[in-house]
């Protein structure tokens, strides 16, 4: 046992500091993908799979001409709106479904069904009710993202042992505190998984949703590029989606993950 009360704490902290510079295999994810891309691209004509530098050049042109900004901005706002709403809604529904058996039984079949319905089927109804524009797009994004998120969060909540909850209750945690201080940290790994899945689904839905009269956005770039056979534009769009994913991975998902990585893998 360490006599100096500070000693163990400090060593602990130092250890954590050192770990920050640790090697991580994630550094290789994107580079290896680029290599595979470059090699594959040599096997196909450029109008099917252009080389990395062609896409880079295309990107450069879009940036120089300034054409890219409205697309980026449009999609960004839509993702923020749709995904943001999906986070709120999936947390609410996921947790309620985790707590309440009746609600869980009721919602799970609907969940599976709604997940399976392609955005194209929503579009006409949405259009009629909400018109063309931001609202419709973020709703389509929301519907696509929220369902798998609810399911994942729900399973995460169900996995929390009643003992932990009891301990917190007897320590005086009110409903809201229980949520913030027990349910949320305990299910954080699954909330993160839900965020990752939901974020990706949101992008995918966006590509479809931006077809409904948006005429701008990264999804529109991809879809129109695919439609007219402009492979560079398609890949530029994909690269931009990848960039967004990377950004969110670094700025949101990874930091959350760091929070529980230590105690979970210990």
């Amino acid at each position, binding site marked *: 046992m360490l006599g100096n009360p500070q000693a163990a*704490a400090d060593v602990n902290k130092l250890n954590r500091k050192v770990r920050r510079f640790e090697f991580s295999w994630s550094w290789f994810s994107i580079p290896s993908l680029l290599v595979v891309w470059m090699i594959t691209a040599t096997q196909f004509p450029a109008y099917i799979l252009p080389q990395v530098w062609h896409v880079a050049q295309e990107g450069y042109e879009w940036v120089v001409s300034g054409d890219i900004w409205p697309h980026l901005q449009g999609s960004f706002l839509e993702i923020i709106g749709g995904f943001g709403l999906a986070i709120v809604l999936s947390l609410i529904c996921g947790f309620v479904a985790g707590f309440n058996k009746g609600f869980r039984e009721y919602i799970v079949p609907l969940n599976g069904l709604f997940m399976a319905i392609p955005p194209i089927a929503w579009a006409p109804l949405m259009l009629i009710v909400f018109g063309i524009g931001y609202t419709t797009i973020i709703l389509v994004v929301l519907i696509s993202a929220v369902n798998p998120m609810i399911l994942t969060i729900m399973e995460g909540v169900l996995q929390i042992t009643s*003992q932990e909850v009891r301990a917190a209750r007897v320590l005086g945690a009110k409903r809201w505190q229980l949520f913030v201080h027990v349910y949320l940290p305990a299910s954080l790994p699954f909330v993160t998984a839900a965020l990752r899945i939901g974020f990706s689904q949101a992008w995918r839905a966006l590509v479809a949703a931006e077809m409904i009269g948006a005429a701008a956005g990264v999804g529109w770039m991809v879809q129109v590029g695919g439609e007219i056979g402009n492979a560079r534009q398609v890949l530029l769009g994909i690269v931009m989606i990848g960039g967004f994913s990377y950004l969110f991975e670094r700025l949101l998902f990874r930091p959350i993950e760091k929070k529980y990585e230590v105690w979970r893998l210990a």
Partner: protein
Amino acid sequence: MPSESERIGGENLRIDDLWFSYGGKLSIYEGLNLDVRPGEFLGVIGPSGCGKTTLLNLLAGFYEPEEGAVTLRGQPIKPEDPHLGYVFQQPTLFPWLSAIENVEFGLRMQGMGEAERRERAQHYFNLVGLMGFEDYLIVRLSGGMQQRVNLARALAMEPTLLLMDEPFGALDAITRETMNDELLRIWDTLGQTVLFITHDIDEAIYLSDRICVLSRPPGGIFRMLDSELPRPRHGPTTRTGERFWGYKKSLINDIAEVTAQRPTSEEEIALLKRRKKIEESD
């Protein structure tokens, strides 16, 4: 830090004609009565699986009695009651918090300021002999250390009704004795009502005002032993006295007796009947 100047006092806890079973299947209590005096230290012993943990869960309000009532100061108990403290049998620490943060948890829920709650938590943390392990992750603590964090967490709340389910089971003899004396000192100062489950008969006698021996379900209380050991108690003296030995022998006999209990043939018949009934209604 406990407000050592004033005795916060204990609670009057009553159990009236309590019936409880798990899903109608296994009846645990059929008409239990118990009156715990304010500030009393009540030891509870009984064979494994007799319903001790179940009793504490009923007292804490986690389970609803099927019939009868459990009341604290005349009111039904809720787990969230700030006067309630519970040391669980299985460690139920929060793995995402460090050891000391676990001890702070309840104080944080009360909205206590950071500096104050750290000070109070540190006090109880040191009390259980864990100084130096404040920042440890729970999974990096040994079984006994976890149990002590568990204990410190409940004590830090300074509850007036303290439910303890084998809190010292995983501690070595010496640490256990130290903990016993610390507990008595705190109890002496604050005067809580304590329900203390243990399998160590010596410990039960050493600590308690009364000792309740439970029989196999659904038997309820087999015997209630009033201890007349003088207070304050002191390890070597108390444990070697004549009276202590008398109590010990009597309790060993009780435990042996309840452990040997088997359902009588009448009970078996009743069970078979019940089974038949379910089959018919199927």
